C-alpha cells in the first residue's frame, strides 16, 4: 500500500520551511515530491532598487551561512562589468574570509548531520569547535556573521596586523580538532552502518542534474570553480580538490571534512603572502558603472554560486540574477531517496547541505483538492478580497477573529 509521509513544511530536521512528500510502501521510499517556495523574499527585485554599493549588504542576507559567498560572486560580477581587478591585499583578505566561512559552514553541517543521526554528542562538540571560528571572524571583520567585508573594487576593512597571530593559532587548534572529528567519523562502525550506501547519487546523475559542490565531488564529479575559473587570489595558492567516488552520505561527510584541511591550507598561504602587500591598500574606487553585463561565480561551501548583473549606466543594477547551488542540489534528492527507508530520508535530504533560503523562487500552487493549479495575481487579489469580506461579516456578527 502506498502511503504519503510529509516531511515539512515545518519539521525538526528542516532548519527552514520546505516540503518533501515521501511516497512510501511500509518503510521503503518509492517516490518523492518536493515543493519549494515557502520563504520567498524577492531579493532580486529588491536589489534592483539599491545602489551598486548597497547591494552587497542585501545579498549577504540571502543566506546567513554563506553570507560571504553571495557578495563575493556579486562583486566579481560588478568588477567583470567594469573590467577592474581589486588590489592584491584585498584579494587575499577576501580569500581568507571566504575560506573561514567555508570552515564554519562545514563544521555546522557535520554537527547537524550528527543531530539528524541522533548523535547529539557530535552535534554539541562540533558546534563548540565552530565557535572559535566565529570569534576570529568577528575579530577580523567586525561581525560573527554578515561580515560586510565585500565591496565592488576591494574590501571594506583591512586585516588588522595583530590579528594574524590569532588566526594562525586558531588554525592550529582547528586542524587538531578536525583531525579528531574526521577520525571519529571514519572509524565509527555505527556511522558506517547508517551512512554507507545510503542516498547514493552517482557521477552520471550528477552531470544530468547539474549537482554542485561537495554533493557532486562526493560522487567523483570533478567541479570546483575555485580551480576551474580561479578568481582573485585563488590562482596564487595551492590546494587540492577533494574527490570521493561513491556519492553516498558517508562520502559527502568525508569530502566536507577533508575540505576543511584544504581551507586551512589556503588560509595559511594567504596569511603568508599578505605580508608582502602594503597595509591600507585595500580597494580601488569605481567612479561609475558602464552599461553592459557582468557575471561572477564563486565556490560557496555548498557549490558554485552564480550572480549576473546588467547595467544601463545608472547607479543601480538594471537586472540582478542569483543562482544558488542548493537550487541544483535539492533536486538530487528526488533520485537519491528512492529505495531507501524513511529513517534515511531525512538524512539524505540534509546531506546536500541544503540552504533553502538561498533557493526560494516564487511559485504558487493550490493543493486543496489535490490538483495543481497556478494562481494568477488576479485570483490572489480576488481570494484576498473574499477573505476580507468574510472577516468583516464575522465582525459585524460580533464573532471576533477566530
Amino acid at each position, binding site marked *: 500500500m502506498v*502511503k*504519503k*509521509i*510529509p516531511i515539512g513544511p515545518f*519539521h*525538526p*530536521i528542516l532548519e527552514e520551511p520546505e516540503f518533501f512528500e515521501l511516497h512510501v510502501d511500509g*518503510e521503503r521510499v518509492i517516490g518523492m515530491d518536493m515543493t519549494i517556495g515557502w520563504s520567498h523574499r524577492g531579493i532580486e527585485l529588491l536589489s534592483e532598487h539599491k545602489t551598486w554599493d548597497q547591494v552587497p549588504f542585501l545579498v549577504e542576507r540571502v543566506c546567513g551561512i554563506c553570507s560571504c559567498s553571495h557578495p563575493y560572486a556579486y562583486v566579481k560580477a560588478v568588477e567583470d562589468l567594469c573590467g577592474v581587478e581589486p588590489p592584491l591585499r584585498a584579494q587575499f583578505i577576501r580569500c581568507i574570509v571566504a575560506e573561514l566561512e567555508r570552515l564554519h559552514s562545514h563544521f555546522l553541517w557535520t554537527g547537524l548531520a*550528527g*543531530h*539528524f*543521526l*541522533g*548523535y*547529539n*554528542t*557530535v*552535534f*554539541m*562538540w562540533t558546534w*563548540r569547535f565552530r565557535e572559535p571560528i566565529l570569534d576570529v571572524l568577528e575579530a577580523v571583520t567586525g561581525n560573527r556573521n554578515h561580515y560586510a567585508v565585500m565591496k565592488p573594487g576591494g574590501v571594506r576593512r583591512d586585516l588588522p596586523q595583530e590579528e594574524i597571530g590569532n588566526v594562525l593559532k586558531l588554525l592550529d587548534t582547528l586542524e587538531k580538532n578536525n583531525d579528531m572529528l574526521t577520525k571519529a567519523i571514519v572509524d*565509527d562502525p*555505527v*556511522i558506517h*552502518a*547508517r551512512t554507507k550506501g545510503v542516498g547514493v547519487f552517482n557521477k552520471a546523475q550528477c552531470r544530468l542534474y547539474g549537482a554542485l559542490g561537495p554533493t557532486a565531488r562526493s560522487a567523483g564529479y570533478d567541479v570546483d570553480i575555485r580551480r576551474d575559473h580561479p578568481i582573485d587570489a585563488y590562482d596564487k595558492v595551492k590546494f587540492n580538490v577533494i574527490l570521493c567516488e561513491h556519492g553516498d552520505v558517508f562520502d559527502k561527510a568525508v569530502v566536507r571534512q577533508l575540505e576543511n584541511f584544504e581551507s586551512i591550507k589556503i588560509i595559511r598561504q594567504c596569511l603568508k603572502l599578505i605580508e608582502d602587500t602594503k597595509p591600507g591598500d585595500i580597494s580601488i574606487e569605481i567612479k561609475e558603472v558602464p552599461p553592459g553585463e557582468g557575471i561572477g561565480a564563486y565556490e560557496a561551501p555548498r557549490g558554485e554560486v552564480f550572480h549576473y548583473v546588467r547595467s544601463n549606466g545608472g547607479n543601480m543594477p538594471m537586472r540582478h540574477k542569483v543562482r544558488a547551488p542548493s537550487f541544483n542540489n535539492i533536486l538530487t534528492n528526488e533520485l537519491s531517496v528512492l529505495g531507501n*527507508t*524513511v*529513517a*534515511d*530520508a*531525512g*538524512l539524505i535530504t540534509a546531506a546536500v547541505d541544503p540552504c533553502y533560503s538561498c533557493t526560494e523562487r516564487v511559485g504558487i500552487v493550490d493543493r486543496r483538492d489535490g490538483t495543481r493549479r497556478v494562481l494568477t495575481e488576479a485570483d490572489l487579489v480576488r481570494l484576498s478580497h473574499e477573505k476580507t469580506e468574510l472577516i468583516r461579516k464575522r465582525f459585524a456578527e460580533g464573532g471576533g477573529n477566530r
Partner: protein
Amino acid sequence: MQAVMYIVRYLVFPGFVFSAVVGLLTTWVDRKVSARVQLRVGPPWFQPFADTIKLFGKEVIVPSNARWTGFLLMPIIGLAAATLASTILWSVNLAPERTFIGDTLVTLYVMTIPALAMIIGGSASGNPLGALGSAREMKLLFAYELPLTIAFLTTIVKVGSFSFGKILMYQQYNGVMLGSVSGVLAFIVAIFCAQAKLGFLPFDIPEAETEIAGGTHIEYSGAPLAIVRLNTAIMYLVVPLFIITVFWGGVNFTGWRILTSVLKYVAIVVIMVLIKNTNPRVKIAQAVRFFWGPMFAISAIAMILAIIGY
C-alpha cells in the same frame, strides 16, 4: 485494613508518588551527565519537575481525526502498569518475604504494557508519523523481548524458582549472579535490551525526533504528554531496578548498604547514559538484526552455561 495498606503502597510508597519523584530525579541525572559529556552545563535538579508541572497546565489538544478514547486512555494505562511494576519490585526488595510465586513473570509482562500502550496511543493519534512510530515500536518490541527473556531465564535456571524472594535469597547466600560467567553475559544483554525498552539511543527509533518528529508521541500535548513523560521516568527507575534485582543482588536500605544500593543504581544509569551519548541512532532493520543476531546468541550461550553450572 489490609486493602487500605495495599492502596497506600500502590499510590504513595513505594508506588506512584515515590517512583515518580525518584524517576524524575533519574531523568535529571541523565540530562546532567549527557550535558557534561556534550560539553554543556545542563539543567538544575528541579528541571524535570518544573517541566512536568508546566505540562499539566498546558492545553490538551486532541487531533480531529484521532480516536480520543484510545489516544487519551493509553498514557494512563501505561502509567498504571509502570507504577505496578515499580511497586512489586520495591516491595520485594524492601521485604523479601512479601514475594509471591511468579512475581517475576508478572513484572516481566507488566513492563511491556507501557510500550504496548504507546503503540495503541500512537496509532490512535491519526497522524501518519504516529502510525509509523507505532509500527517501529512494535518491531522493536518483538526484537528485544526475546533476548531479554532468555537473559532473565538464565537467573531462573540457576535459582530454580520464579519468585523474586528466592532470587534475592539465592544471591545473598551464593554471591550475586554477576559473579558467574553466565550472569555477566546475561547482564550485558539485559543492559542493551533495557536501552531499547526505555527508548534510548541507539534504539530511540520509535520516537526518532529528526526522522519522524516524535513518532508515537507526536500528537500528545499538555497533561497526556506529561503522563507519557512520567511514564518514561518511572520506567527509568523500574528497568535498572529489575536488572539489579535479577543480576546484582537487589537493593537494601539497612545501614551502610544504602550506599552500595544507590551506587549500583547510579552505575547502571551512567552506563546507559554513556551508551546513549556515544552512539547514533540505528535503523529498525539494523536493530532487529542486532537483537536477533548477536544478542540472541550471547543470551543463548549464557543460558547453556547456566544449565551446565557456570
